[in-house]
């Protein structure tokens, strides 16, 4: 056998070994992926990432804001394109004239506030980037009421830890909802947006109001918000993980990456 042929046979053997071991490794990875202990170990990194982000930035550090010229010509629509509840569809018929946002749960002063009421409050306008967990980004200008003003008006209980956003859209068969902690709830850029790019918030982007929480990913930006509930325990809502995609797709509750 010539050296060349020997080398070829050796290469074939090595190739076979490489393919075989890669199949083994992949099978192993899939098995580990299904293993509850391993998954919870990986999940430890989520907490580590949140702690790191919070220690590197002040609680009020702003997400980057952009110029009018940076706005995406077409902002990709995603998730639900309209609210689906009967109540929502009725409000849609009357252009949300009688729509009221409910704020309750662990607050001393539960309240209902309409679109005019929200617009009458001090507003914030910000041009920010929306980042989907899938990897794409789009930039838009948002106009809205800072969440912290609403929570102050409703007199948030000192025992509350999270703010839950109940939405009017069913995605698949389940109602959409999201939640954030109080650091993000009181962040200056966290607003309930009722306007987008100088106009009333269009239905496909979440009318009448949607949440903007600018240091986190797109699935936290709940659309069609109907009710805001303060709580100290996320486990009692729906799947218990604090949000629709957290429950359904096992996505991270803390979506800072």
């Amino acid at each position, binding site marked *: 056998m010539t050296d060349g042929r020997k080398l070829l046979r050796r290469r074939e053997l090595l190739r076979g070994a490489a393919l075989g071991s890669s199949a083994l490794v992949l099978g192993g990875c899939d098995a580990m992926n299904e293993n509850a202990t391993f998954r919870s170990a990986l999940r430890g*990194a989520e907490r580590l990432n949140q702690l790191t982000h919070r220690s590197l930035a002040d609680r009020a550090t702003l997400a980057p804001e952009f110029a009018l010229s940076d706005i995406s010509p077409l902002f990709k629509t995603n998730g639900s394109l309209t609210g689906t509840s009967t109540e929502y569809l009725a409000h849609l018929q009357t252009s949300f004239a009688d729509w009221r946002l409910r704020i309750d749960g662990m607050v001393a002063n539960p309240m209902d506030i309409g679109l005019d009421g929200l617009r009458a409050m001090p507003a914030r306008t910000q041009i920010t980037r929306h980042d989907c967990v899938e990897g794409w980004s789009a930039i838009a200008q948002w106009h809205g009421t800072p969440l912290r003003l609403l929570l102050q008006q409703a007199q948030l209980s000192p025992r509350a830890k999270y703010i839950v956003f109940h939405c009017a859209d069913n995605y698949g068969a389940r109602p959409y909802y999201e939640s954030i902690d109080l650091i993000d709830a009181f962040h200056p850029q966290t607003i309930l947006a009722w306007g987008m790019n100088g106009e009333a918030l269009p239905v496909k982007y979440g009318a009448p109001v949607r949440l903007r929480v600018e240091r986190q990913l797109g699935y936290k930006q709940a659309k069609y918000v109907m009710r805001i509930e303060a709580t100290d325990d996320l486990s009692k809502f729906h799947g218990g993980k604090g949000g629709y995609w957290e429950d359904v797709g096992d996505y991270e509750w803390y979506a800072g990456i």
Partner: protein
Amino acid sequence: MEAAPEIAKQVVKRHALSTRIWHWLNALVVAILLMSGLMIFNAHPHLYWGDFGSREDYAWLQIDDTRTTGFIRIGNNSFETTGVLGLSLDAKENVRRVAFPGWATIPTGYDLAAARRWHFAFAWIFALGLTAFMFMSLVNGHIRKDLHVRRAEWSPRALWTDIKNHARLRFGDDNDSSHYNIMQKFSYIGVIFLLFPLLILTGITMSPAMNAAWPWLLDIFGGRQSARSLHFIAAALLTLFVVVHLIMVLLSGPINGIWSMITGRHVTKSKPEIAGDLA
């Protein structure tokens, strides 16, 4: 009968313990990061330049399918890649319309949430491991003694000789294996001090929370979507390095090479002509 000139085998100490531990740990971690990264890419197989980019915008790179064929488009050039990119068969021979096939991703099936968990957990091990390795290599002299490109090695003549040696597949046992050759130094320096830090920094730049904490990262890389493109390009270059690295190991004496990366000891042959000179 005259005795044949004996080829003296000499064992040299080649790799420090910190180098060996990091090498194998990093090999595993990089494989996991590359494969989970490809699954994350599958969630949106388009790349853009600038701050924003979605299906509404022009992508400079796209891996997609026409339902019957898979393709990759780079700028205006499309290449059919049916069976591998865009459209492929899974282990059960089902047609899957994904950018990278299941055999290249972790997990093998489409699962963005799981791939993100793998990627972000192992990214910590990668970054901390790299930092520890750099620190140890500074302390034990690995950078100064082994990776540092000496003045003489920068000369066009030395570079040309090294290129010719590579073209003739003359490295490893034929040469003095107690030190790295010039091309080897360039590639190791490029990966350790350019590619790895670039991967970490462009990765961090994709985090909206880190954009608030360290907005200068966006300025360095020209926006989040540019950072995403650079992250992918750097990962592709790293894959190229791994392929070339493995080929070089195979060509330069795989057993001795792998053994030395495990035990630290490398067997070299002193050349017969030297033995002759001594006689």
